[in-house]
């Protein structure tokens, strides 16, 4: 069985909410034999499961679910009821495992009091590699006040997330899944048949922590956004799928880009999207569309190019299994499933929504307007002159650290070294004398927000570029050169002699590989994994005429 067979099997399991636990375990078993074939777009994540009762099987079901989120999860399960010991002993197997994310699953009956949990979490906080602790809340009506206290205590805590286990039990059915007869046989308090649903809910945290949150939702129209076929049934007999549409609008408000891939006449589709009174979604919510009679995988390729995103950040929903299979076969990296499953899908989960996220839907529409404007100019220079670009460069501060961290996690195309940082990582970088600047860009069409980051490690007379990255949205307008010129000028003002930059080629950052040498940096050396360039700070670094730069 090849890796793509496993991917296909994992993808089909999203469609089937009633699939038994054994199907997921079968996938996890096969994963072990294909480690070498993992595609480049997969990200790794290390997940530890610490529980006060039997959780055997859950980590493996979780691993299988992870495949359909383009994640390769390494898992650790603490021995039965040893969660306290594993956390308190700093030479334990748990610490040796070096988890990125910890799931703490404790039954109320197995702990002394909440203080016990707070102490455990404080101990975990000092283990620097852990990026998030997901604490399950407690089951049953008797736990209501304890659960409310947990919500209150951890409301603004970036390190700890509370997972509503109690609500999950209501959803899957408490009677069949919690404290069943199986408690008498091996202390199996949670029915393994609930693991597939539980694992999908838990995987959201892994998606968020690994920076793998999906960015774009592509939708079909007929029998997806509405019940009926507009070309055949006419607009009055369509039944609008309001629940689904409201769900999609929530995603739009979180910053997810929306696009349409539909086999239809353009006029029929716009008629509904612009005029039908029952619709929640409107044309303005969509950044791009292919509404024609082409095959959907061809449309998908064009949409991805037009939106300038990478295919592994796309989700596609369509009621037609034939179209789903077509897209799935050509793009195994795209999450493809039936519209009914969108509410159960965790690929869009993120721990925080930044201001840029909230504005993204609007920004994509502005981008469409920019492109239409650009086509109207024969000369690229004239276009840039009329665009009215302005950039604001500022130092990292409490307000922009989340966005800076997010950019280091998500930016792939224009990224010289691809060093990923959590928010804590950014704070540590600043605390050890690192310098960080963020660049925020706007033009006459709108504000892109913070779209670039430069991270410098200063040394005696030298500055080392730790990170230099720019969102692909603002490439090709001179912003990257302007930003680097600015940094060079700052270095000169502080009597630094030279700036050294390292370029690490990845599968995605081709657009950035020649940037330093094009800018004028001299080549120093290279090996199999990286190239080093150096700029002696002697010349004058003037900005390009089309960009107004401000520094605050």
């Amino acid at each position: 069985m090849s890796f793509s067979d496993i991917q296909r099997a994992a993808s089909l399991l999203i469609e089937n909410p009633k699939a038994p636990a054994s199907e997921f375990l079968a996938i996890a078993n096969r994963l072990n034999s294909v480690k070498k074939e993992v595609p480049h777009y997969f990200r790794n994540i290390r997940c530890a499961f610490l529980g006060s009762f039997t959780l055997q099987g859950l980590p493996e079901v979780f691993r299988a679910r992870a495949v359909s989120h383009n994640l390769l999860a390494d898992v650790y399960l603490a021995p039965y009821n040893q969660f306290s010991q594993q956390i308190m002993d700093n030479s334990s197997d748990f610490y040796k495992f070096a988890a990125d994310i910890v799931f703490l699953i404790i039954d109320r009956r197995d702990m002394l009091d909440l203080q016990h949990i707070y102490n455990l979490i404080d101990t975990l906080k000092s283990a620097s590699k852990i990026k998030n602790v997901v604490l399950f809340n407690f089951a049953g009506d008797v736990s209501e006040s304890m659960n409310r206290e947990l919500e209150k205590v951890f409301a603004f805590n970036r390190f700890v997330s509370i997972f509503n286990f109690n609500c999950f039990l209501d959803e899957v059915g408490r009677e069949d899944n919690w404290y069943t007869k199986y408690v008498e046989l091996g202390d199996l308090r949670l029915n393994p048949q609930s693991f597939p649903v539980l694992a999908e809910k838990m995987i959201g945290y892994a998606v968020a922590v690994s920076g793998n949150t999906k960015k774009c939702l592509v939708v079909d129209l007929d029998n997806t956004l509405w019940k009926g076929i507009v070309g055949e049934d006419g607009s009055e007999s369509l039944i609008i799928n309001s629940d689904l549409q409201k769900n999609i609008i929530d995603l739009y408000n979180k910053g997810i880009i929306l696009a349409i891939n539909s086999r239809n006449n353009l006029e029929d589709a716009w008629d509904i999207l612009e005029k039908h009174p029952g619709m929640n979604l409107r044309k303005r919510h969509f950044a791009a569309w292919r509404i024609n009679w082409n095959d959907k995988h061809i449309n998908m390729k064009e949409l991805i190019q037009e939106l300038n995103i990478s295919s592994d950040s796309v989700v596609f929903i369509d009621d037609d299994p034939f179209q789903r299979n077509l897209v799935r076969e050509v793009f195994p990296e795209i999450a493809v499933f039936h519209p009914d499953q969108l509410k159960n899908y965790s690929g869009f989960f993120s721990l925080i929504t930044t201001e840029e996220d909230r504005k993204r839907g609007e920004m994509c529409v502005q981008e469409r307007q920019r492109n239409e404007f650009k086509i109207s100019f024969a000369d690229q220079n004239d276009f840039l002159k009329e665009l009215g670009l302005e950039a604001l460069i500022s130092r990292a501060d409490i307000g922009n650290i989340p966005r800076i961290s997010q950019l280091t996690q998500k930016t792939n195309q224009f990224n010289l070294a691809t060093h990923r940082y959590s928010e804590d990582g950014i704070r540590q970088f600043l605390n050890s004398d690192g310098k960080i600047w963020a660049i925020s860009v706007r033009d006459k069409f709108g504000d892109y927000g913070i779209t670039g980051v430069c991270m410098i490690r200063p040394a005696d007379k030298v500055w080392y570029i730790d990170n230099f990255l720019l969102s692909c949205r603002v490439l090709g307008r001179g912003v990257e050169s302007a930003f680097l010129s600015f940094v060079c000028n700052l270095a000169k003002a502080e009597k630094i002699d030279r700036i050294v930059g390292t370029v690490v080629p990845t599968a995605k950052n081709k657009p950035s590989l020649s940037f330093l040498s094009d800018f004028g940096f001299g080549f120093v050396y290279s090996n199999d994994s990286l190239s080093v360039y150096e700029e002696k700070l002697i010349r004058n670094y003037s900005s390009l005429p089309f960009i107004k730069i401000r520094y605050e």
Partner: protein
Amino acid sequence: MSKLKDILSRILNMSPDSITDATGPENAESWDSFNSLLIATELEKEFKVKFSLEDIVSVKSVGDIKKILIKHEIDLEYE
């Protein structure tokens, strides 16, 4: 009995052909106590039946499973 064989094959990581009525915890390496419970919960879900504790504890082979399923009125020829 193909549904039963498929379930056992996935859980025990054995090919369906190698599973006979005599297969059980004594001779199948992967049939440990956890997998026994997993088999029981999965059969309950797939065949929509509820086993008693005695049912589960009494199973020593695939043949025993079949007897219990028949007792719960599951038609193994059809399934």
